[in-house]
């Protein structure tokens, strides 16, 4: 039944593009015409030891891609296709795959292991492949099986564990898998390949081992094997074993106490003397312990009986751990600051030191300061950089009281160090300054290590150093970012920055214009810092400066449209630059339109700005520019009804944005902009509503579109309803069933999943917002349109009101929509009947009236009045 496809598979990898394309299309045709035979043929190819490695490898990859995809919609489709295939064909394929695990060709074994795991991820949860675990374990227990089979089997077990969840296996299966895996790690019995595969499999199987870790004997055994494996001769196996320890630190923190002495020695030796790949994992072990303890510290002690234990491992290990980490800081590499992909032991050590500081607070300071003091003046740059890095790392965690004298004493030194002869030292110094400004400079709350007197010097140094090498300049941008952020909403203190604003802005623009930055990172840092500068400036004192910035940025944006585009690289660069500039424009628009005195500046420039945005949109054919869309929302808000004149030209981009399923952020932003435009135009949006509503409904119905966009779409229905009032009537038969459907989904949502709970809250709030807007739109013109939907809405409110876990914002929206319903439907017999039957109203209103939230109380009183009005009159 299987077809011979070797030639096509080989041709599909040909260097000749024509041959390749033809082969690919033949394969696709085959796949479309007869999927079962196609998949069977692929597995036959993969299983056949006489076929070339190349065709077997591709057969495996195509097979895998026929079972799984990143996109959830596509994946669901593939699963359905697989499920529809005749059971006898499927079992033939599975047999072939299992047989391939015994192949003499390593690549075939490896690919086969991956494909088995993909099938397992579909079939195991549905209990459709009960014999899989058994047959894999059979490979392990039979003495005569060659090491290659065992290695491939362990690899398969690891992948399978990675794909399925621990609920998919019964405890006996888990026990058997763990036994097989842990035995596979046994030094005496197995080859290095088998032990490596076993250790990696254990990493994936650890999640299944809850019950086993609760049992002291089993736990001791697993821990002993892992610790022994961490001392293996082979570096890859040691690394894999340490990765297991990292996973154990997170998953089984509560039971680690008895092993900590051993683990400290093990990790300590690895950090000091092992290969870097192993040492990095050893440091990661301690970082993970910190993560656990920070989280446990953060959870309030009153949170109830299930309070997780806090064993204070870091505190206990502190006197030994800190020196260990400080030593790593001296192991910098030359040029590590030039390449963002570098991750080495000194960086991992510094990161861990920062986490330790957050875990233990003040206690770390006396352990680190002597290191700082003794190294900061040494001639070797490694020492000076390490000292600065150590100082910068401990700025978060200890109290302000403990830190501020040290920082105040050291600030001048750091400012001088911006002239150090070494690039790394300057890089780390600028970073340390940005940490200081981020953490110890908050004039808005009345505290800062920078006095008004030394602000001038601080800014002077920063604006000089911004001309340094690109990596240093980028860190200086960060420092300016946090420096200005401190003055946001800082009352009178915000004036302190005003005299320097012009200089800061021109330096940032000059930095953005630099051409020595290599990639665009320095440029976007400069623009993003500029945004923060605009956002945090004192508008009353600096509006003229920002008004002058506006044409500068508009001019730059205009120039991007002229850039010659030859390659896709050029296109990308143009897009990035436009993104940055649209971002700045958005911030300026928002800033200037925030006060009546300055809004006019935006209104006067609105036509020109809009022309620019339309040009930016015009630079692309298939997608809309996300940042331009975001900025247009701000512009619509600023211009109000005047925005109408832009609609004719802008509308097609709005449509494009609403149709962008793949880049769901773009879609989400466009939905938000529709809301802005509704509020700006009111019923003047009517001519565009058919199109917009059609697309929004399509978005809602799409399984492709990321679910996070759906709540904003419901809210947007409310915006449209409020804007066009009675004209919403024609959309009611389409929109309302969607809202009711979503309400029913909310009712059935999994409340154990925190992420779903969050999503559920968003969805509920947005459904209420939709009803509110629509009801308000129909109020006093055509309230009867909504009468048929009232009962369902009240039931939904009731359901939400009974949910104790509901979010405060959901409560507010629910209480408000109840009032809107009474208000809009008005006083008549039907409305009376509706509310008469709803006993929950009083309980719910009572609960809200007792809230501490004034706004909620007021809303509830109002709603009470509205319902009272219906009932009394």
């Amino acid at each position, binding site marked *: 039944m299987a077809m011979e496809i070797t030639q096509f598979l080989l041709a599909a990898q040909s260097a000749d593009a024509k041959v390749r394309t033809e082969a690919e299309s033949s394969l696709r045709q085959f796949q479309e015409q007869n999927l079962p035979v196609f998949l069977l043929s692929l597995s036959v190819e993969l299983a056949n030891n006489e076929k070339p490695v190349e065709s077997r490898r591709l057969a495996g990859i195509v097979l895998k891609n026929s079972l799984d995809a990143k996109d959830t919609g596509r994946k669901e489709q593939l699963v359905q296709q697989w499920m529809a295939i005749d059971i006898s064909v499927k079992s033939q394929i599975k047999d072939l795959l299992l047989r391939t695990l015994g192949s003499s060709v390593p690549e075939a074994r490896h690919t086969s292991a991956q494909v088995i795991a993909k099938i397992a991820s579909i079939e195991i949860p549905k209990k459709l492949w009960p014999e899989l675990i058994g047959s894999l374990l059979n490979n392990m227990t039979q003495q005569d099986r060659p090491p290659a089979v065992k290695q491939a089997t362990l690899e398969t077990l690891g992948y399978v564990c990675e794909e399925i969840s621990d609920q998919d296996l019964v405890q006996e299966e888990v026990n058997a898998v763990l036994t097989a895996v842990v035995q596979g790690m046994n030094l005496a019995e197995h080859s290095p390949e088998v032990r490596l595969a076993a250790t990696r499999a254990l990493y994936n199987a650890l999640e299944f081992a809850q019950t086993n870790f609760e049992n002291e004997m089993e736990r001791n055994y697993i821990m002993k094997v892992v610790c022994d494996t961490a001392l293996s001769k082979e570096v890859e196996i040691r690394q894999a074993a340490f990765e297991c320890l990292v996973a154990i630190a997170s998953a089984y923190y509560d039971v680690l106490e008895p092993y900590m002495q051993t683990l400290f020695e093990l990790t300590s030796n690895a950090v000091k003397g092992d290969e870097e790949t192993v040492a990095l994992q050893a440091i990661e072990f301690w970082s993970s312990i910190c993560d656990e303890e920070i989280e446990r510290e953060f959870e309030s002690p009153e949170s109830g009986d299930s309070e997780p234990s806090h064993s204070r491992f870091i505190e206990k290990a502190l006197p030994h751990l800190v020196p260990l980490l400080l030593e790593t800081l001296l192991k910098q590499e030359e040029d590590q600051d030039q390449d963002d992909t570098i991750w080495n032991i000194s960086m991992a050590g510094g990161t861990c030191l920062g986490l330790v500081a957050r875990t233990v607070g003040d206690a770390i300071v006396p352990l680190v300061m002597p290191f700082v003091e003794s190294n900061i003046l040494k001639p070797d740059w490694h020492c000076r950089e390490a000292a600065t890095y150590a100082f910068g790392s401990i700025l978060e965690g200890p109290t302000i009281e403990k830190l501020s004298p040290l920082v105040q004493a050291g600030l001048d030194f750091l400012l001088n160090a911006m002239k150090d002869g070494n690039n790394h030292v300057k890089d780390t110094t600028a970073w340390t300054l940005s940490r200081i400004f981020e953490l110890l400079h908050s004039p808005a709350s009345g505290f800062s290590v920078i006095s008004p007197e030394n602000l001038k010097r601080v800014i002077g140094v920063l604006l000089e150093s911004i001309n340094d090498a690109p990596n240093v300049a980028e860190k200086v941008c960060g420092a300016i970012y946090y420096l200005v952020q401190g003055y946001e909403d800082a009352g009178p203190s915000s004036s302190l920055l005003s005299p320097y604003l012009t200089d800061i802005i021109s330096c940032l623009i000059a930095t953005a214009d630099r051409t020595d930055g290599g990639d665009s990172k320095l440029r976007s840092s400069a623009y993003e810092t500029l945004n923060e500068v605009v956002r945090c400036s004192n508008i009353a004192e600096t509006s003229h400066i920002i008004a002058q910035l506006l044409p500068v940025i508009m001019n730059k944006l205009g120039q991007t449209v002229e850039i010659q585009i030859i390659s896709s690289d050029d296109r990308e660069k143009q897009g990035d630059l436009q993104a940055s500039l649209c971002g700045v424009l958005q911030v300026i628009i928002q800033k200037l339109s925030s006060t009546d005195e300055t809004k*006019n500046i935006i209104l006067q420039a609105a036509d020109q700005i809009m022309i620019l945005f339309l040009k930016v949109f015009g630079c692309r054919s298939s997608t809309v520019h996300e940042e331009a869309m975001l900025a247009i929302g701000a512009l619509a808000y600023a211009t109000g009804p005047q925005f109408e004149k832009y609609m004719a030209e802008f509308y097609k981009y709005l449509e494009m944005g609403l149709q962008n399923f793949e880049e769901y952020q773009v879609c989400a932003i466009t939905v938000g902009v529709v809301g802005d435009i509704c509020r700006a135009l009111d019923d003047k949006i009517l001519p565009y509503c058919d199109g917009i509503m059609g697309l929004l409904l399509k978005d809602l119905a799409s399984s492709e579109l990321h679910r996070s966009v759906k709540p904003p779409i419901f809210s947007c229905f409310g915006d449209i309803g409020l804007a066009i009032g009675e004209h919403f009537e024609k959309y009611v038969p389409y929109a309302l069933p969607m809202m009711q459907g979503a309400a029913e989904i909310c009712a059935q949502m999994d409340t154990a999943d925190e992420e779903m709970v969050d999503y559920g809250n968003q969805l509920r709030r947005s459904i209420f917002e939709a009803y509110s807007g629509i009801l308000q739109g129909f109020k006093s013109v055509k309230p009867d349109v909504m009468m048929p939907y009232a009962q369902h809405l009240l039931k939904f409110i009731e359901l939400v009101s009974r949910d104790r876990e509901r979010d405060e914002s959901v409560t507010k929206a629910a209480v408000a929509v109840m009032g809107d319903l009474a208000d809009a439907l008005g006083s008549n017999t039907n409305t009376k009947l509706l509310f008469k039957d709803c006993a929950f109203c009083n309980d719910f209103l009572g609960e809200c009236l007792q809230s501490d939230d004034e706004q909620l109380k007021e809303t509830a009183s109002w709603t009470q009045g509205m319902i009272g009005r219906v009932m009394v009159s």
Partner: protein
Amino acid sequence: MAPHDLRRPFKRAAISDQQKRRELSLLRQAQNRRDAQQQARCLASSILSLQSPVPESEPEPEQPDIDLETAIEAEQESGASSKDLDVRRASKLRGPEVRKWFARQLMLPEWMIDVPDRLSQDWYVLARPSGKRCFVVSSNGTTVSRLRNGSILHHFPSALPAGAKTRDGSGSAQSYCILDCIFHELDQTYYVIDVVCWNGYSLYDCTAEFRFYWLNSKLEESGACSPPSYYHKYRFSAVPVYNCDQNGLYTAYTGVVPYAKDGLLFYNKHAHYQTGNTPLVLVWKDENCSQYVIDTDSKGEIPSQQQVVLELQDNGKLATSDDPPVVFGCLDADMIQQSGLDSGNLLRFAISDGGLSFSDGKLEKADLNYLGKSNRARAFADSYSKILFQYTVRHSPLKIDDLLASINSPDDQENKSCDMEMAG
């Protein structure tokens, strides 16, 4: 177990401004949406236009203190004002339009020419302060009082919600109040006789019962009743409201209040706040509780004959401002021709000795004597209830004892006759 993510490079924390911009945009949009819905909820978004950057382009016609005669006269002016309150439209008004709109928003009592049924069960009574009737609007850190014609009386800080720019920040745009007040010149106090919106919540469609309850609990709490201070230029005071039983009526009538009384106001407990004339709020007065019982002329003197203002209609009929209008008489075509009158003109008449005659409680005939065109400041003719009240005051006034008696009587229905008596 999923492989742990590579630890975030500690020293390379990227500033993601894009994410921040997205989040700030979402926040702004959510806030705008809340404001918009809240605005719709509270109806009175018109108030926002008070803060419109466009200044009221026409200079505010300086209103010298309106003398009480005009104030009372003005009471009847807007009889035909629209009943529908379209605040969404009003919110878009700018400049002088705002003034016009406000001029139509007050609820105007009819004059009590007979005693309503169930007075003691369904009605409240209060002693009306004499002074300038106005709307007081607090919003966005300032407070504005507007007279009946929409012009501004005072612009001042107050302790009403959103009424002053205080150090702790003023309320947001959606927080505002609209109060129906009488400004009492002598003690420089705003006496609040009704509440239309409080702290963003519309009470237009609420019963008087609910509105008074709300007013009493909120006004005191806001601090608006405190003595004047830097952030609170005028004192506000609630007017005591009584159930219209014997005690209540008697207390309102005789009780000592810190202000000069100008009659009694009766509110039907179930009535909503309704713009323009309404029979669900009534005014009544006699010499004991008002200085101004009988209308005076422009010199402040009581004319020997009652004067009325009527509107000339197309067919020559002379009608009141009521909806539907009540016809008091007819002018013949010759006379209209000779005097150069047009339909729509407001004409002043004296009621001569023949007086008004009624049959079955309906006006049958009026003995009118043409005096001339009315003052141009007038926008509307008199209402039927006003003419009748003034007429009875001169002939057989409805006395406080009649009111008290109607409450006493086991069957309120009996009081119907009182109307007939007066007419006779």
